[in-house]
Structures are given as C-alpha cells and as structure tokens.
C-alpha cells in the first residue's frame, strides 16, 4: 500500500468516524454527593485518595465510582454504585480511559494486555496504602512486570545485563505496557529504532551494511540479559558461523587456542560488524 493510499485511507476513516454516534459509555448522570459524604463511611480510602493525583479531580470519588446518592440512600447498597471488583476488566478500564485516553494510554484498547483480560487496576492502585507510589503502581515497576514475566526477572539477574538492577533503566525505558504501534509493545516503531534511541552510533546508514544487523538487532543480541558477553545470544565464533557456513575460515572449526575464537572471536578482525563507513570496509574490518 503506497503512502498516498494511506493518506486517503486515513481521510476516509476520519469521515466514517465523524459520522458515527457517540460511544456507549455515557456521561455520568446526576446524583453526586461529594467526597466529604463518602468519607463518613470510607474514611481510610478517602484519606488515601486525598494524597493521590486523582484528588485534583473535581468529581472526587464519584469521578470513578459514579454518583453516590443512590448508594447513600440505600444505606450503603453496593449494587447502587460502581464497585470495580464487580466489573469485567474492559468495563473497569473504560472508566479510567474516560480521562486517560491520551499519551501512553492512547493505544490501550486492543493491546496485548487488554486482550488478555488485564485491567488498569491490575497494575495500578487508585488509593494506595501508605506513601503514594509513582504512577500509583501496586509494586515497584520491575517487581510488578516480572510478577508475570518470570523469565525476564531471571534474565535480568544474570551477570550480563543492562543497568536495570542499578536503577538506570526500567521496563518502560523500552516498552509501553499500555500498548504501542511497535512490536512487543516497544516505544518505537521497530526493534532497531528502539535500540537506536540509546545507541545512536549504530543508526547509520552505513556505506557497508550487515543485513541481519540492519533488519533486527535481536538476531544476535538479547537485551533482557545473557550469560554471554555483550548480551549476545550465543558466543562467537559459533554465533557467526550459524550463518557464515560457506567458504574459507568462517566454515572451519576453530579451537579455543586460536585467534579466531579467543577474545572477541570473529570481531577481533571484523570489528565494524554493525556497519562500516570506510571505503575499504566491506568486510567490516575498517
């Protein structure tokens, strides 16, 4: 599909959308009682809520839980107010999305986490006990993400890792857990563009390009952690030899005692393996 076709498609989509009626999640009806009234029974929750960024909302508790008049009139009848525990994940998230519909959350609907029945409140706690954590997360970010992604936790504890344990990065340095236009919920549109955001020296374009490098950094590297040097998936020379099988020294067996294998293996000579800008760099040696 050409770029012109994309623009036409976008224009057509916009026309269709403008013609469409409003969504099912309607504005809240009347019957608000105010946060102060809520506090007469829910003192702890209201206190916790007051310390959160949500307290800036003019609607207070009822901004999320809906109008409380019927609930109050019913003597605390839980069926007459929005109780998040009773909502489906998508119903629950729809409440949050009324306000959080921009920025990082703009791609939430239909994202991997949304389609697997996770809700906003799976990870965020709107009225936390004690100190208010960043982004109202239920646990510190690394701990939270790895409570499901156990393998990533194991990888990040390896000796070969990015500086996450040291507090210089976290999962959201690369991923947007709310969904994105990139693969694997990456912040950028491709794996490589994500990597270039910190490793701009690898961006090029180079005169001599190494095709698997240009197409996907993950061909050779595992950014979550590795037992090999430089976050490589395998150690050289075997990593290189899995493609370079054809002729001459790449297809020879190299013992630990030879200069093709020790130190950095193939990269001892082909040091510009990410791309070279030298007119004599077609073998990535210069």
């Amino acid at each position: 599909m050409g770029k012109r076709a994309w623009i036409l498609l976008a224009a057509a989509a916009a026309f269709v959308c403008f013609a469409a009626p409003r969504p099912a999640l309607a504005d809240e009806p009347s019957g608000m009682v105010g946060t102060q009234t809520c506090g007469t029974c829910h003192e702890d929750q209201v206190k916790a809520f007051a310390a959160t960024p949500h307290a800036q909302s003019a609607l207070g508790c009822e901004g999320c839980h809906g109008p409380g008049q019927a609930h109050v009139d019913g003597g605390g009848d839980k069926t007459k107010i929005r109780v998040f525990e009773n909502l489906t994940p998508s119903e629950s998230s729809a409440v949050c999305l009324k306000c959080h519909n921009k920025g990082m959350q703009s791609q939430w609907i239909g994202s991997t986490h949304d389609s697997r029945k996770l809700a906003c409140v799976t990870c965020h706690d709107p009225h936390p006990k004690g100190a208010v954590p960043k982004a109202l997360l239920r646990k510190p970010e690394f701990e939270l993400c790895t409570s499901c992604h156990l393998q990533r936790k194991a990888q990040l504890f390896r000796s070969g890792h990015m500086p996450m344990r040291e507090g210089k990065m976290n999962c959201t340095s690369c991923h947007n857990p709310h969904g994105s236009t990139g693969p694997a919920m990456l912040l950028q549109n491709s794996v490589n563009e994500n990597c270039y955001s910190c490793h701009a020296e690898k961006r090029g374009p180079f005169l001599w390009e190494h095709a698997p490098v240009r197409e996907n950094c993950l061909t050779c590297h595992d950014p979550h952690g590795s037992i090999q040097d430089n976050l490589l998936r395998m150690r050289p020379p075997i990593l290189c030899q899995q493609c370079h099988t054809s002729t001459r020294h790449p297809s020879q067996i190299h013992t630990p005692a030879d200069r093709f294998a020790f130190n950095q293996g193939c990269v001892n000579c082909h040091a510009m393996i990410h791309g070279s800008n030298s007119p004599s760099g077609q073998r990535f040696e210069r």
Partner: protein
Amino acid sequence: MNVTRTLKYLVLGAAMASLASVALFAQDSTTSGDIQAGGQTVTGDHSSSKFQQYEEIPSGLVLFGTAFAWDSKSGYTVDFKGENFGYDDQWATLEWAKKGQWKLNIDFSQNPRWFSNTATTLYAETQPGVFLLPTAMSVGIQGGADIRNYLNGSQPVGLKYERKTGKIAFQYTGIEHWLFKASYQNEQRSGTQPLSLGSYFSVGNNTVEIASPVDYRTNTFNGSAEYGDGKWFFSGGFDYSKFTNGLSSVLVDNPARYQDSTGAGADFWRASLPPDNKAYSFNLAGGVNLPYHHRVVANISWGEMTQDAAFIPYTTNTAINALATFDPVLPVNSFNGKIDTFLGSVKLTGDPIEWFGYSVTYRSYEMDNKSPVIDFPNYVAADSVAELNGPYSNDIIGYKKTTWGGEVHFDPVRQVRVGLEYTHDKMDHQFREYEDNTVKTWKGTLDLTFSQWVTFRASYSDIKNDVGAVNEDAALNDYSSQFDIWRRDTTQYNALLTLTPTSDLAVTLSTQYSKDKYPDSTFGRTGCKYDNYGIDVSYALGEKFSIYGSYMYEKYNYDMASQYRVTVPGNALDDWWNSTEDKVDTYTLGLLFKPISDKLEVSSDLTYSKGTSDSAFAIVPGGAYQGDGYFPNAAGTQYFGYPEVFNKLTIWKTKLQWKFNKNLSAAFQYWWQKYDAANWATDVMQPYMAWLDPTANKSLYLSATVPNYNANIFRAYVSYKF
C-alpha cells in the same frame, strides 16, 4: 572527593537552598523531604571492573540520597530527588508544576560502563585517535625481533566510558482535553572502549587492540500535541535526533611494520568510526470510539535517517596508493546515505457483546534504504592488499514489513476467555538471500480467573516462516544459511498459574517452550529449542513477617552444521556439527521482619544466577574437517568441544533499620556480592597471545579480562525526614 565533586555538591546545595527559600517564604504551603547520609566501606576482593560495571560503590562518607517536596495550596509544587551525588552513577530530578496546568522536569543522570580494568597497552595516543608505538619497536619487529622484547613498556589503560544525560521536558495540560509536550535531551558519552584492527592473512596476519576513544554526543528533541475527549483521540508529534562523533577515525601503528609495502603491509592502519548521523520523524495518530463498544485507531509516521560524513581514504598504505594499477581517488567524498522510515497502521477493536470481542489490524512498516550505490574501482583489504577487480559496490539493505491479522475472543462465562489470533507478516527485503519471507502465526490463548484467587493464562503458537524467490545476487552459494529469514517451523507454548488462596499467600508457576525447526537447512542453524520452568512464592505471617522466593530453570539448545569447502559441492566427509547447550538457574529469596512495630525492621534479599554453556562438535569419523589446529582427542573420537563456560552471580543484601521517631531513623546494611566465572575466550587474554596461538606472534592485545570478585559492603546511614 575531588574538585569536580565538591563543585557538584556546591551546586546541589545552592539548588536545595533556593528551593528551601521558596518554601519558607511561600504562604499556605507544606514542605517535606528526606536526606540519607552515612558511611560505607568495601572489603574483600573488589578490584574487578565487573563489580562496578554500571555503578560506583565508594568507600567513605556518602550522601546517598535526598528528596525535597513543596506543595502550595495555590497548586504549585516542587519535587526534587537525587542519589549518589558526586559519583559516577549520580542522578537528580527536579519537577516544578502547577497541578492540572503544567509541569517542568529537569533531569540529570550519569552512569559508567566498564569493559575492563586489567588492560595494558604499548600505544601512546599522541593526538586524539592517533595511536603510536615506539619507533624502535616497529623497526625491530620488522627486522625479525620478538614482540615480547618490547612488552615491558606497557601501561595500564582503563576501558570505560561514562554516559551523562541531561533532559528538560515541559508538559502543558491547561486546556481541557489537550496535552502538549516538548523535551530536549543532551547525552554525552566519553571514555574508551576496546577496538581491534588486523592485517590480511597473507600480509603479517596480525591483530592489535586499542583503547579506542569514545566521544559521542546525541541531541534529541521531541514535541507533540494530543487531544482526547473520551471519544476522539488525535495526536501529532515530531522527533529529532542528531548524533555527533568527536572522532571520525583512528590511526593505529602496525607493530610489525615501520615502512609501507605492497606485499608486507602498512606502517599504519586506519579505521572509520561511527559517522555523524541525524534522524527525524513526524507522527500522526487518531482514534475514535464507535457504537457497540468499537474503536478504531490509526497511526502514520514517516521519517528519515541520514548521514553524509566524509570518507577516509582507501588506505594509509602509501605503497599501495602509488601502484599504477590502483586508483586512490574515491568516486565520491562522502556517502550521502539516507533511509526513509514509514509506519502506517489501522486497528479496529470491538467488544459488541458481553461474551465476544475481536480486533483486526493492518500495519505496514518500511525501512526504505535510499542510499546511493557507489562503485568503487578498487579497495584495500585491511590496509594490506589491493583488490583491483572492481567495481566493488555497496549493498542497499532495507525492508518493508506488512502485517495483517485478527483476533477473536470468547468469554463463555465471566471467568474464562478463549482467544484465537492469526497474524500474517510479509517482509520484503531490499537485498537479502531471499526476496521476501512470510511468517504465518496461529495463536490460541486461554485466560481463566476464578474467585479472585486463581488466575491461569496459557497460549499456544504455531509459526511458519516461508521464503520467497531466491535473490541470486545476494545468495552466497547453495550452502549458505541465514537463520533469521530461512524457512522455519516454530512451536511455542507458555503457561502461567497464579494462586492467591489467602491475602497472605501467593504462588506463581510458569513454563515456556519454544522449538524452531529449519527443514531446508542442511548447513547453518538446523534447530533451536528453549524451555523454562519457574516458581515464585510469597507468604506473609501477619504484618510482622513476610518471606518470598523464586526459582527458574532455563535451557537453550542450538544445533548447526557446516563444512569447509574448497570446491562446490564439497566433500561430505568434511562435514561438522555443533551443538550448544546453555542452562541457567536463577534463585531469589527474601524476607521482611518487623519485630517491633514502627521501630525495628529487618529485610534481606538474595539473588543467585548460575549460567553454563557447553558447546560440542561432531565430525565424520575418518573425515577431513578443516580447522585451525585440532582439538585435543579430536583425531580419535567423534565428539569434542569447547571448555564449559560458566558465570555465577550472587547478591545478598541485608538491612537492619531502627526508627528513633517519625523523623529520624538509622540503618545498617550488609551487602555481599560475588562473581565467579570461567570463560575460555577471555580469561586467557594477555598482550602477547602467541603462547596460545603461534600465528599471533606479531599481535598486540589489551589483555582485557573481567576477573572474579568477592566483595563485602558495609553501609551505615541515618535518614532524616522533614
């Protein structure tokens, strides 16, 4: 504490004083904050660079961290936080905001990246990027002297760079439904990293390593405007990034030569370093909620990556440049490289009825390399050998990836969701061994939630990667294999079970399995398998005691085949196979104990990761496989391999904290960190490596190793909150 650090403390102090002044003179405001300061000592064997690879763990008096917050009733806030002031891993962040209106963030972060601190070098960097050896050495070695005669002059050199990042970001939300953002970031990397250069096989056949300067700067600007009213969403943004390398090339003395020669190599070698480059992108996105719980979201992004850094000459070798058959004039002086990027995506999501939902997606991503093809009449391999059978032309590497697919999910009962997905990815390559490859993925998912205490998630994927027409220009030969795009059949499953029978107990079990088969690959990667099993448990015994732990076992298998060929087809007796198996065990264990509420707290965390890698070869009995030297016992047996590689990392932190009152507390922390590894590839490194490989007798290495360590850190500090 050096002068720079003192200055940093002064700047920090001034900033804090300014903030405190604002707070003191402001009416109707609240201030809070804390400061953590104390002493730390490091004992044991901690000289390894690995110990402080990404951080600094100093001994002495340390301001560990501080925070300050000011909140006025008029809606203005100031938040400052920072840690490790004056050290290589310091960071600070300041936020000044008016609630619901705007926010200004100023951040600074620094972190080191150690490669090795055992490196030594004979080279003197006389000018930035110019690495010279003593003249007598090159003269002597060219005359036949042993390189070992000159090693006494080696000097230690640190292989480390620092990354310093400063960022200023502004966000405005003062207009209902609108969000405006702008940020500027300046990142500087400075220091050294290892870099190798070598000569050609027939010419000296030697390699040198240098501590190559790192002098990178990346400036980034982002700006965006977004609108969202609950139904509609629009955004537009712009990103710009400029990378500048302070050094375009390195010039390195060849230890084996002091004269240029057409047959014996160059006096100096030159290598091109990463060129300056720029990138920008424009992004537009829009979305709208449609009737019956539908939403459509579309994104368009287009950008460009460019570089036009001047080329270095073909070679430093004046003897080759003087050859009548060699044309030293470059056809162009710079590359003028350009890659256009484009993303277009549309996603329609619908949950029209309570028990059914779906989504359909179309996405096209392009990395369209529009760089010119340059025909070089000749080139020089490793400053050593003139290659005269040109033209030698660069390949244009890029691709277009078109993805479409859909997902349906059913919730037969409220607690159960069954999903089915299909994704079709077609990747058209500008220049690869195949014109295109297509990945078709079927995925089934199951998500169960019972009674708030049982959650089970599982998925199964069947993935087939097929290839299109062979690109005869790109294919190395019939036996080459590129495992990233080759025909591949993949089976994957994973499962996660979380049990929380009480609010005090949580148990999570997980497993993953993935197997790749390469049905067309006789050589290259022929198989790949990965599986893991994990458990994670946490248990709280009242409010005073909690304990948690986890274990994960992982195994990776990679199989490959190859053959040294003089002719095509080769001799099957020369085939060889390699099987590599990596295993990793990861344990964590921790506890939190509060024997005296609001007074005494004890916490302890232990992590242990042990990874091993075994790589074994097989050859045809009686065959004539080719290699550089023979493995011990290889002649008489079919199986032999590399020595096992392992690395074990243990981190144990225990902290005892006593709270004197709500403002003041003191803590003592003991931190044990141990790294124990064996790596046949790097443990052996010395400046002179011909003791291991006699053909490296004119090579000079940095002897960069990463030794084991066993360190104890004792930290005592007081924390004051106000």
